[in-house]
């Protein structure tokens, strides 16, 4: 793994398009299509939820009805009929799962195809996985090892049943249901997702990982992730996503909330590879996600994302630096090809004194795609000596794509220091000629140059994710040159 297998990577992309575009023949139980109070109640009922949660969902749903679809992003979003979506689908299972042997073999094959090491390899890789297929969390591995340290890592539905006090305390505390249109929708209909709690002073001994996959046709996925790192705790969390290849668009409206208590640290890494649609822009996932974390005193939150999938991406993982000396980081590679659109970036909200934030955004646009960075750095009046460094780079491949940058700065304190750097570049003919002359084909050369360009961000990813991300960047560029 350490040996940088760029060659294998480049070899393997020769014939690939979207390699995760298979569907699994797993029976699903679905609720009827459409959205209503009854559906919200039915979801809640199916999950045996306590009344407070049902009420929370209903409040969110009623608020959702008062909102309209946000249109401020640099995106061209076709109208979505929210009544044509199935809000809940679960793979049919005979009884609650006890061990790996009881997992549906077809489901296991799905995970194998995804390359998710659900069993023994996991011990070696030191990864604990919560796999969410459509709406239900199927299997959380390594629970016992983690439990010994008091770490809770399970599906959010289970957390609601087994740790209601924690869920009730933190759910909606960072991203309120009133936050925005899609956050309200998610709060009303969220079906599953992951919950993670690291107790005081505990350093999580392994990477925690969630894989999301939309499988059933016509379904949306509305997962909810809640991560709480209590005082002095540490966790590195990975999120991966794939979806089958379908002609219709699928909606994915997730919410991720992270609470980083005093002196704690959370690293959240995403490799987002939802189906991007075909070369003509048909199909693909609409990825409308709200991700936000709050950092208390001396806490640190680091977002790293590699975004190569989805027809449309609308996503701004943010940090609220509430406590003094809190640190927020955002490292992003967003790549768009063909007719993909992305409007992504971050918000760094400096509330505490001596808070620091760092933003490194690398956009790559190819084909006819549109790629926007949108960021907000906000320094509140009491944020003495706040510091921000932002770097926004755009790389253009071909002459039909677009790169856009919308950096906003709102500074209310004179002691703040803000830096912003931005570059726009193209892959030069000279670079390609140089690579070609060394025997490297143009397509491989582009993959290589793009990976080099994104290196600073890729270096922030855990090793096994970095390799996957490199492959993805190269694969996603297929056919973008020559």
């Amino acid at each position, binding site marked *: 793994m350490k*040996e*940088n297998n*760029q*060659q294998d990577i*480049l070899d393997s992309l020769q014939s690939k398009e979207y390699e995760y575009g298979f569907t699994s023949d797993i029976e699903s139980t679905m609720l009827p299509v459409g959205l209503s109070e009854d559906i919200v109640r039915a979801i809640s009922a199916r999950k045996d939820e306590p009344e407070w949660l049902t009420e929370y969902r209903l409040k969110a749903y009623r608020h959702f009805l008062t909102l309209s679809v946000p249109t401020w992003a640099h995106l061209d979003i076709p109208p979505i009929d929210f009544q044509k979506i199935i809000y809940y689908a679960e793979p049919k299972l005979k009884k609650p799962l006890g061990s790996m042997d009881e997992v549906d073999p077809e489901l296991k094959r799905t995970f194998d195809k995804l390359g998710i090491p659900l069993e023994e390899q996991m011990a070696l890789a030191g990864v604990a996985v919560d796999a969410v297929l459509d709406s239900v969390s199927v299997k959380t591995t390594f629970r016992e090892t983690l439990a010994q340290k008091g770490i809770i890592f399970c599906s959010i539905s289970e957390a609601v049943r087994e740790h209601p006090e924690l869920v009730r305390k933190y759910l909606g505390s960072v991203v309120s249901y009133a936050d925005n249109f899609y956050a309200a929708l998610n709060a009303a209909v969220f079906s599953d997702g992951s919950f993670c709690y690291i107790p005081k002073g505990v350093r999580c001994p392994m990477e925690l990982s969630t894989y999301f996959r939309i499988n059933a046709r016509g379904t949306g996925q509305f997962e909810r992730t809640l991560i709480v790192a209590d005082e002095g705790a540490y966790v590195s969390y990975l999120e991966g996503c794939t979806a089958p290849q379908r002609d219709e668009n699928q909606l994915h409206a997730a919410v991720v909330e992270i609470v980083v208590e005093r002196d704690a640290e959370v690293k959240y890494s995403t490799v987002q590879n939802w189906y991007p649609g075909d070369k003509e822009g048909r199909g693909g996932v609409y990825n409308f996600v709200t991700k936000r974390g709050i950092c208390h005193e001396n806490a640190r939150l680091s977002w790293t994302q590699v975004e190569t999938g989805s027809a449309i991406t609308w996503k701004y993982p943010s940090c609220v630096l509430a406590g003094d000396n809190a640190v927020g980081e955002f490292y992003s590679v967003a790549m768009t090809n063909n007719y993909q659109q992305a409007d992504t970036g971050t918000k760094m909200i400096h509330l505490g004194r001596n808070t620091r934030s760092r933003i490194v955004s690398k956009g790559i646009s190819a084909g006819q795609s549109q790629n926007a960075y949108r960021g907000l750095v906000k320094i509140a009046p009491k944020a003495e000596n706040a510091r921000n460094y932002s770097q926004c780079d755009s790389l253009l491949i071909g002459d039909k794509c677009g790169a856009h940058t919308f950096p906003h700065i709102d500074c209310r304190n004179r002691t703040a220091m803000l830096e912003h750097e931005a570059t726009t570049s193209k892959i*030069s*003919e*000279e*670079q390609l*000629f*140089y*690579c*070609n*002359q*060394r*025997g*490297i*084909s*143009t397509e*491989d050369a582009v993959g*290589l*140059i793009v*990976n*080099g*360009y*994104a*290196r*600073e961000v890729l270096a922030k990813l855990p090793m096994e994710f970095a390799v996957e991300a490199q492959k993805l960047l190269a694969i996603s560029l297929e056919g973008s040159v020559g």
Partner: protein
Amino acid sequence: MANGQQLKMLSVKNLHASVGDKQILKGINLEVKAGEVHAIMGPNGSGKSTLASVLAGSEKFTVTAGEVTYMGEDLLQLSIEERARKGLFLGFQYPVEIPGVTMANFMKIAVNEKRKAQGLEPLTAAEFLRMMREKSAIVELDSKLTARAVNEGFSGGEKKKNEIFQMAMLEPKLAILDETDSGLDIDALRIVATGVTRLKTPENATVVITHYQRLLDYIVPDYVHVLYKGRIIYSGDKSLALKLEKEGYDWLINDYRE
């Protein structure tokens, strides 16, 4: 050196090439055999670098007439990377920077592409590292440079050494070195030139493009050609380079002035 038994490596006949409307090469004839070193000299703007680029397959130039045979094949029908994989190497006058891509990674891909074209297995990590260590010693290239991004932040001398390092890694049949000596101090020049000489075998050939005789003190050419206004107007042995150093080009090119 030159005898009838040698393998004919490169044969350029009446080669014409242009960029836009501008004709730059106006009928180049050149024969290179295995084991030979050819030096191409000439005043600025005579087409030396263009010749190198055209032979490497640069798409900046259009070949308007003539033919080029390389190892028995029609060179002009091959893509840039095919030419490279078949052993044609161009040492760049201005090596290009590729940010974020380490030299080691870049070379690993290049070497394995070539091996693949030859039907060989890719090198293992250990084999590759050993090879890098050996080859970087030939040009006294600081091994730390291979961990840095391709040419990024390299000094002028390091860039040129790095070109010869790549040549050593790729073991070309025909190396065309485009002003590899420009911008080098005396020590770097010696190192680079000695490196090239050490890579010389009876099976490969080298074409060096240079302005200065001093490079040829190290890389002793079998033939020296003077390129002027897109044509080779004069060829001789290594003594020609010495004469040019002393007397300049005037005595040669007067006849060709318009």
